[in-house]
């Protein structure tokens, strides 16, 4: 009962059950075409939220691969399942009280010491991040490296699923980035200055003038405003 189109169909096995799907669709659109209505497993639909973590296997291949369902095209003979939730441990901490001199990452997540350097996390990452490397950097207390390497993480949780040492890599990365942004990166002095300027009331006086202008006056001012 295929809908009328010239697009060739491919076989996709959604959790083991075969559906004929027009080629060229993303895994997410394929699931919907097959009749699934998402509650879990779909979020931003654009590769930023990590809701649609998917594990799949291709025909005649024993390897399990990973993908974001919204960013990957179906292939003939693909077996897939989504993992929409990770039961991972996230520590609660007060950023003001963390001490970077005594490896805060290791203190909050001591399980990172269990890393056996198997690289499973790196292999499964749909963002192709060097996950194991940032776990190792965290272990050494190299906050900058852990923060930078983990920066593009969409927190889909696949790394934590694959880890034989039960590390929650993506939560470790989150803490590393906050530590870097708060304690390691140099502060923006000009932002501080700008806050003081606002508090002085000078911008408010200028804005009051703008607010009292007639539509013609403000349009004219807008047209003439110098552009950097």
């Amino acid at each position, binding site marked *: 009962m295929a809908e009328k189109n010239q697009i060739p169909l491919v076989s996709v096995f959604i959790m083991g059950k075969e559906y004929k799907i027009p080629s*060229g669709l993303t895994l997410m659109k394929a699931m919907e075409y097959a009749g*699934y209505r998402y509650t879990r497993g779909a979020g*931003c639909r654009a590769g930023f939220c990590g809701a649609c973590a998917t594990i799949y296997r291709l025909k005649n291949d024993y390897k399990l691969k990973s993908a974001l369902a919204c960013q990957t095209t179906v292939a003939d003979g693909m077996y897939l399942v989504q993992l929409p939730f990770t039961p991972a441990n996230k520590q609660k901490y007060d950023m003001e009280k963390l001490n970077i001199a005594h490896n805060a990452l290791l203190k909050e997540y001591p399980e990172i010491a269990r890393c056996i350097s198997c690289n499973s996390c790196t292999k499964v990452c749909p963002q192709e991040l060097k996950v194991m490397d940032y776990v190792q950097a965290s272990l050494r207390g190299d906050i900058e490296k852990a923060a930078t390497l983990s920066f*593009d993480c969409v927190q889909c949780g696949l790394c934590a699923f694959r880890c034989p040492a039960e590390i929650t890599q993506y939560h470790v990365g989150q803490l590393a980035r906050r530590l870097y942004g708060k304690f390691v990166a140099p502060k*923006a002095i000009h932002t501080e200055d700008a806050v003081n300027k606002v508090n002085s009331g000078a911008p408010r006086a200028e804005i009051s003038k703008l607010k009292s202008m007639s539509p013609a006056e403000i349009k004219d001012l807008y047209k003439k405003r110098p552009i950097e």
Partner: protein
Amino acid sequence: MNLIKGYPESMRESIEKVEKTREKRLKEKYQQMSLEERDEVLNKYHPDYKPEVKRKLSVGSSKEEIVPMEVADLIESYPLVSEKDIDLTSIDYDVDLLIIGGGGAGTMAGIWATYEGIDPQNILMTTKLRHGDSNSIMAQGGIQAADKANDSPDIHYLDVIGGGHFANEPELVEALVSDGPAIIKWFESKGVMFDKQKDGTMITIHGGGTSRKRMHSAKDYTGMELLRVIRDEFINLSIPVIEFSPAIELLMDDKGQIAGAVLFNIETHQYYVVRAKATVMGTGGFGRLHIQGFPTTNHYGATADGLVMAYRCGARLRDMDSVQYHPTGAAFPEQIVGLLITEKVRGLGAQPLNRDGNMFVHPLEPRDVESAAFIKECYGAGLGVETPTGMQGVWLDSPMINMLKGEGTTERELSAMYRMFKRFDINMVEDPILVFPTLHYQNGGVVIDANGATELKGLFAGGEVTGGVHGKNRLMGNSLLDYSVFGRRAGISAAKYSKKASVGELTLSHVTRYRKELEKAGVPESRKSPMILPEYRGRNVLSRAIDIF
């Protein structure tokens, strides 16, 4: 289809023309339009300026307001539940503060209500999908704030008002631009990794319609980075969240105040009654209504539920006649059509080009003007590039970025974009990318004041669900600032309000009243809202679905 490095031969021919003109263009600048020229292209080509795609609302507190047909249909719809369906004597959650929506505005509101002294255990956030599933997390390019020496909130103010066609609410714009520097400082103190120079100076660039370089970024994951940090902070504060349970109606009390909401668990189909002394609405916008059939950059749950619920209680809407189409949605390949290509791509130097490789518009006009110019080039001048599925688009000459800013700039500063195209075998460092306008932002919304209070007692709001901040057109980088400023202000105001408020007897009588108004106006019974989620299942499946299980 035979693809050469991601593109079919037909498109490759046009890419060759782009390459031929590139050297000359690297040194050229295109003139910006005058206000009169802007008006002309908008009137003739912007999808929002066609009168036949809108109509006047026939019911409610903003009766006679002109809104897009899709919005009118949603607002002139019958409620999903009636008074007899819901037992209001049995309360599932009794809280000081209810936050509806788990995006940026709601997250900020929760954090700042806690700072204001509300016990986190007396706050409840409810969200349709997961905490963080929102447009906030998808914003790429940056956040504006006037924090450089050559800039000032009043200069920012003028940019916002001009970009919004002078229709903005001055008090709201003042709040937006004045809080900007403090918001950036707060984010920095919470550990946001902004793009900085070695000495700590923020790296800032232009966005469309800005007169100063005040776009702060975190690569092209700015929205994700901000949201990751504030969500982490929110979780650390132990504020309770119920996911997959959107609000479907607001509750009122016999004193006419907003007093909580009815939630619907979309997994178990159970409802919950929440009684709250104050309610903050951060439900976001309407991208998933696919206004005029446009694809959208928005997340799965962007169905304007908040507008509908607030309207039934008597909230007024404003500027809902104006819809933002982002000039650069992906137009190829098919799998990513409509997804956002950040304005930062143009900010870093990529020029928009027609199929002959020629410039036809300045790269950084305000979004509505830039969009209209793209549509004109494709459908007026007939110089668009056609894709194999018959879609039109214009090139963004992304290889220019590394040529202008140095090797590795694209890979580093646009890593999300670079990654997305690479997944489909296109290397945006070597080849241009094809774009066309896509439905992006709800410019208008629920009327609020500078404290984030709506005109309804007990209801506060921030972010895309509100109107007035951006007038008729939002500038890039002002939505992240909007949710930060007004999410925070709404949270503080709601916290203060809740300390003094007392809730009377709960009621859904406003829903019954609204139903009667709809009947009187002759609205067809088949229309129901809120939408909760769009319907994307295959037509074939739906045509053979039976509701027996």
